[in-house]
């Protein structure tokens, strides 16, 4: 076997050199424009992520200098931890409720606010969007006051039995307080995405459908909804991902209470790592959670892409 360059013709060598030069040029352009971002992404996301995976195989408590390798025993602990699974199922329930309600409500709002005969559209759009600009902690504290003081006051004054006691202390109702606040927080945001989708539907298509005799419901069902699939892919993805990751509202509104019945998965992971001082186990839970959420989101995007239609 002769080394390759012996059999290369001159033109082939030139082509290889040209390719190499093009690659170096590309790399330069890349480094100039995206270099700093790549560096930042690498140092604050990728490296900690990999280091985190490494820590799942140790029994580190978060501060000690020495720790031992424990193999996969942290993962075994996670699988055997009833509290983790209870919290996970609760989160799945919460995500299911919020995804359905937020998207339905967001779409209805968007549909109404892009109609012809609604006065003050811009004002209303802004109004519905504003809750999304308030930080989760403040939002949680505001709603805690509403749930534990205002609603209870109204309930007792008017003798409405289901409002007379704080929902935040009732293990059966506390999940709904989280759902209500999340719906209030995100519906307006999703509405904006839906509005962007709705105004992009070509008017002539709707016009044509109308001339063909389709009534309002038929136009919505057969024309607008199929054309809105790209918007739904984005909104459902966002709501699923945010639902699984929610922590701030959970902390400020319920603090996981009463007696841990509203402890969503992020809070559970956090408490395992920092309160129980079992960093390895907490990190394993977090990594496991990452895999699950990634799998769910990718599946969702993959399958809903298939629903997309061309106008």
């Amino acid at each position, binding site marked *: 076997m002769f080394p390759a360059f012996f059999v290369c013709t001159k033109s082939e060598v030139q082509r290889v050199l040209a390719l190499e030069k093009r690659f170096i040029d590309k790399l330069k352009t890349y480094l100039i424009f995206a270099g700093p971002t790549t560096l930042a992404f690498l140092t604050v996301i990728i490296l900690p992520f990999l280091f985190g995976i490494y820590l799942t195989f140790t029994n580190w408590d978060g501060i000690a200098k020495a720790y031992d390798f424990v193999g996969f025993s942290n993962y075994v602990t996670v699988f055997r931890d009833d509290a983790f699974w209870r919290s996970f199922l609760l989160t799945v329930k919460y995500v299911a409720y919020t995804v359905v309600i937020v998207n339905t409500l967001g779409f209805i709002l968007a549909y109404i606010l892009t109609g012809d005969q609604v006065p003050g559209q811009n004002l209303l759009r802004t109004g519905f969007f504003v809750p999304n600009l308030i930080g989760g902690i403040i939002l949680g504290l505001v709603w805690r006051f509403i749930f534990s003081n205002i609603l209870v006051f109204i309930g007792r004054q008017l003798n409405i039995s289901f409002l007379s006691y704080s929902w935040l202390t009732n293990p059966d109702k506390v999940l709904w307080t989280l759902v209500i606040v999340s719906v209030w927080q995100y519906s307006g945001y999703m509405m904006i995405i839906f509005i962007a989708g709705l105004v992009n539907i070509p008017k002539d298509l709707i016009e044509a459908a109308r001339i063909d005799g389709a009534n309002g419901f038929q136009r919505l069902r057969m024309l607008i909804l199929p054309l809105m699939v790209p918007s739904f892919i984005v909104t459902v993805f966002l709501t699923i991902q945010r639902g699984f990751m929610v922590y701030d509202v959970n902390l400020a509104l319920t603090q996981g209470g009463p007696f*841990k019945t509203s402890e969503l998965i992020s809070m559970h992971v956090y408490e395992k790592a920092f309160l*129980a001082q079992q960093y390895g186990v907490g990190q394993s839970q977090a990594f496991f959670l990452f895999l699950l959420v990634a799998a769910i989101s990718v599946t969702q995007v993959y399958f809903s892409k298939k629903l997309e239609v061309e106008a």
Partner: protein
Amino acid sequence: MKRTGLGLCLLVLVLVLASFSPAVLAQDVHITILNSKGEIQTQLEEIAAYYSSITDGVTVEVIAAPVGQSPFERAVALYASGNAPAILMLDAGDVLLFQDRALALNDEKWVKDAIPNSLDMATAEDGRILAFPVTVEGYGFIYNKAVLNEAVGGEFDPATINTRDALKELFDTIENSGNNAIVIGPEDWSLGAHFFALAYSGQSPDLAEVNAFLEGLKNGTVKLADNAVANGLLDTFDLMKEYNYDRLDPLASTYDRGTQLIGEGEVGVWFQGNWAWPGIADFDTTGGQFGFLPVPISNDPTDLGNTQIPVGVTKYFILDGEQNSPAQQQAAKDFLNWLVYDPEGQRRFVQDASIIPAFSNITIAPNDPLSASIMEYIQEGKTMNFILNLPPDHWANVGASMQKYLSNFINRAAFFAEVEAYWQGVGK
């Protein structure tokens, strides 16, 4: 054009790198204290400002561990960012976790002036003393003296409450006088770390026997249902539940509401510790007439806990020996010595910040009535162990079970089963 692009890139890189290098160019020594007693943040800041003003070239800054975040967690984050304060105030149980990074303090002058047992939780297995005892704290039933005087029609004597029946009688007397007897704070830390911990410390005045009891819970040989102290404590809790101001919705109450109700005399009794004083003081209408009652667990006045209240060193300062320069470490040591030995330091630390000191050379006492009441119990020897070596997630888990019991969500057998299950899972 290309040149400028590359140059710009380099400039950005240099700027990024420059921002990472530590800015310790100044000659002056700057030290930081992590404070985890939120209620004395302002007082500590004033002490730091004063100390900075009287020393040459030393500035002291106080940073706070945010409410709702454990000091351990804040300290871990500061260490991970290479930004550890020179002095860190930690919970007693967390001190030894930092033994790789804390400075050994065996040669400090205050070590021999520290009160007996106050350094137990600060001493590593190899004999190094790693922490400075910040404060002694205690807890029990806080009473509003004005309400109780009105109820008993004269001067209320706290020594009369030494059995559960006496407590019930007191509650009845308060209710008959038109006031409310008690409010139970539903916080998990209060119910788990303080109230139910009475069942552990009530087992024996000897800490070794308490630890043996906890060991028994871990390996499943102790059955709480057969334990007189645990049952007695819950009998008292049942009594408290019966007279609870918020009995209709017991979990809806809050800590702040408790400070207001006791401060304004809306209720006569509240279960808390002397750390609650700054909160109560905001609502105080009685001119500072407050004190502590023990939590009785039986009807025999000689039983442990019926006349004693739990007292212990709850907070420690550790000095960082890793990320601070020798000059900063020395400045931190000097600051602690100033607190213990300088008259002005003592006065500001003990009286301005309402700290019960853990040093026998300090003769002045805090001014607030709750600390004064704790000091009285200490002087009369009526104290028991404040259990501080519980597992770090004990308060959250046992506290949650206590909340269930408080809101009648589970009965006593189920409560004991949950607590036993928690202990058997510790460290697994």
